[in-house]
């Protein structure tokens, strides 16, 4: 399996696996508690503090590990939710057409017309910020993009004869969506999934940076950047480490997705 992967895919895989490993095993890997103040503020990297300390003197490496947990969990769940929602509604709109399609599509346009970040800021400043509201808001906002893609794909596919044949057989809408259309739309949807996950990570980080994302004492990469941003003025690199981690994660995910995409489209000689 690994033999077939290109070097870019291997690089991506190494990046994703390393970060995911850190996230999963954070409590065992972290040398200190995430909220424990263990030294002076903004200490440089040393044997005791591998990545130095933050603005309150907490170990940055431990916080990065715990932050990875939240970032992965929230962004991942929001992406999966947005896909389930967007794909299901998009396919339904494309298969059923008519007034349902109109209603869903126009509602979708309405949501897309409002800048995502501003919309999220408004909603989150009204609602109590919990992990669940955060995930739901992110999922619904990003499902608009998925809806568009899914609908466009499904409209294309449902014009093909094999979908017509299924209709003539008298198949139910759900069968057409899940058995006829979905398998043929997987490749482009998968590519979008990788991209959307990257965007979700960035979006969550922006929200946390603005103080509306993950709330203390919980921590994620965006909030670490926020807490340590003042250090940049004094030449302290603490803010760049989580920022770098975000960049590495998004790039790695996309490298992996690209290579999986290449494999699935050659598989069974299906539609690319």
């Amino acid at each position, binding site marked *: 399996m690994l033999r077939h992967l290109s070097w870019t895919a291997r690089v991506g895989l190494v990046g994703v696996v390393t970060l995911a490993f850190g996230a999963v095993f954070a409590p065992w890997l972290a040398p200190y508690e995430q909220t424990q103040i263990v030294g002076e503020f903004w200490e440089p990297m040393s044997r005791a503090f591998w990545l130095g300390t933050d603005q309150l003197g907490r170990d940055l490496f431990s916080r990065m590990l715990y932050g990875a947990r939240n970032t992965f969990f929230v962004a991942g769940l929001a992406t999966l939710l947005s896909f389930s929602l967007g794909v299901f509604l998009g396919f339904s709109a494309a298969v059923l057409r008519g007034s349902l399609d109109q209603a869903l599509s126009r509602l979708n346009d309405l949501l897309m017309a409002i800048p995502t970040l501003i919309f999220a800021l408004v909603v989150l400043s009204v609602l109590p910020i919990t992990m669940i509201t955060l995930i739901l808001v992110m999922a619904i906002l990003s499902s608009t993009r998925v809806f568009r893609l899914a609908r466009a794909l499904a409209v294309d596919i449902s014009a093909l004869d094999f979908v017509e044949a299924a209709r003539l*057989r008298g198949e139910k809408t759900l069968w057409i969506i899940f058995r006829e259309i979905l398998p*043929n739309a997987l490749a482009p949807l998968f590519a979008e999934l990788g991209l959307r996950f990257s965007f979700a990570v960035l979006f969550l980080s922006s929200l946390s940076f603005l103080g509306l994302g993950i709330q203390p004492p919980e921590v994620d990469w965006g909030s670490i950047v926020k807490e340590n941003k003042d250090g940049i003025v004094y030449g302290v690199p603490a803010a760049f480490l989580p920022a770098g981690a975000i960049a590495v994660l998004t790039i790695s995910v996309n490298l992996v997705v690209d290579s999986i995409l290449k494999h699935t489209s050659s598989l069974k000689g299906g539609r690319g």
Partner: protein
Amino acid sequence: MNQNAQLLDVKKLRIEATVYPPGEEPQKLLVVDDVSFQLNKGQVLGLIGESGAGKSTIGLAALAYGRGGCRITGGEIWLSGRNILTAGAAHTRKIRGGQVAYVAQCAAAALNPAHRILEQVIEPAVEHGLMSRAEALIFASSLFEKLGLPDPASFGNRFPHQLSGGQLQRAMTAMALCGKPALIIFDEPTTSLDVTTQIDVLAAIRCAVRDTSTAALYITHDLAVVAQIADDIMVLRNGKTIEYGCTNSIINRPQQEYTQRLVNVRSIRKPECAGQKDEALRLQNISACYGNGVTVVDDVSVHVHRGQTLAIVGESGSGKSTLARTITGLLPRRSGNTVFFGDKLPPKLKDRTTEQLRRLQMIYQMADVAMNPRQTVGEIVGRPLEFYFGITGKERRARTAALLDQIELGQCYLERYPAELSGGQKQRVCIARALAAEPDLIICDEVTSALDPLMADGILKLLMDIQQRTGVSYLFITHDIGTVRAIADSIAVMHRGKVVRFGQRADVLSPPFDDYTDLLLSSVPEMRLGWLESVLSKRERKGHTDEPQH
């Protein structure tokens, strides 16, 4: 070598491609193997063979071009005394469009939709510096006239979307002729056209080639067409030469078994049906239109008996496929009645019962898109069994295997995906899927028109066998009169949404004809020399006698 007579000399041409089957090591594939031929000035050579025979690849090789990873690995191609394979890129560039021109199969896709016809027609001649722009413009309109295009002076100002299929193909021929090339490669120029249009394009090509004494390579899978145009014919199969000789000897005295089969294709004939049985389907005054209000099917009344075949014939745009859609309920009819074994079918698909859906099945033209590429053959054929009869598990597998036996494919195909089948096998699987529902009527929408003649013959034989065994009725939609002659019991000829002629096969196909049926029947290429001339001269005579009456 004798340069005066010999224009193109292909010696031991060998072309290879590398294929990458999923999960396996890359394999080398011999596309063209040891093919040699000569072409003199003003001579036409027909390359004929089924798809995958390497005929287009040879045609493109004469432009020193290998498409899609094909590599010319052996042999020589001498064009006007120079080996173009070793002549280098600059020389190749010079000959393409100048000395050798190419006419593609699908002119609609090959012409740029954003530019006017005239600009595209004169481009090669002007680019190669063969004539000035002004000269080229005059020459182009003279070509339009020669090719029988309407209004030659202003024809070039149109855009490709404003032309019909036959006009596009002739415009493309004009583009090839404009550079006054020594050699033109026609790659299936009439395959996607209706027979009535095909005959005009054939006549135009033939006259253009004669008058300009251009040599041509004519690539096609239709032996009857090539017999009208070519001086020599080369029969290819799997990249190898099967037979090579002058047209007369290939058509009248074929030596090889494969050529004989090609010449005798469509020799199956269904015996005349004796007794009239009860009616399977009766259409009463069906009319249908699409959303824009244009009537596509106008007051159609036809019927087909149990165990018999009704062929609906017409050119593209005559409304025959739309008629099929109204019968299946995909497009609700606007008026009229569909009576299916005595009970009226509701116009809309979703108002029909599962039982009604089961008894009426459909087979499509393009087998590749009629099957879900992500399902195995077993899943595709087994689904109707499960859906209509609730058969699952082991029994479903056994029944599916039995169905595959019926269509002459083995059990080993159960786990295959559609992409792993050939065109003919795909169409067989589609037939099996329709049979799985144990229908009373199958609508066959151009089921053989995407297939090579020999494969199409196999499919038709299979369909007839099935009819004899199961007593199923067919509604056979086609533009191919040859197919109709072979398998129909009754025939309906459609023209512009109306049925112009309907009756038993013998009645419809024997005179006196109405004008349209006459045109349609006389346009079908026949496998004999001189057919094109005789038809054209007959039409010309008829035109002259018609004129005084106006």
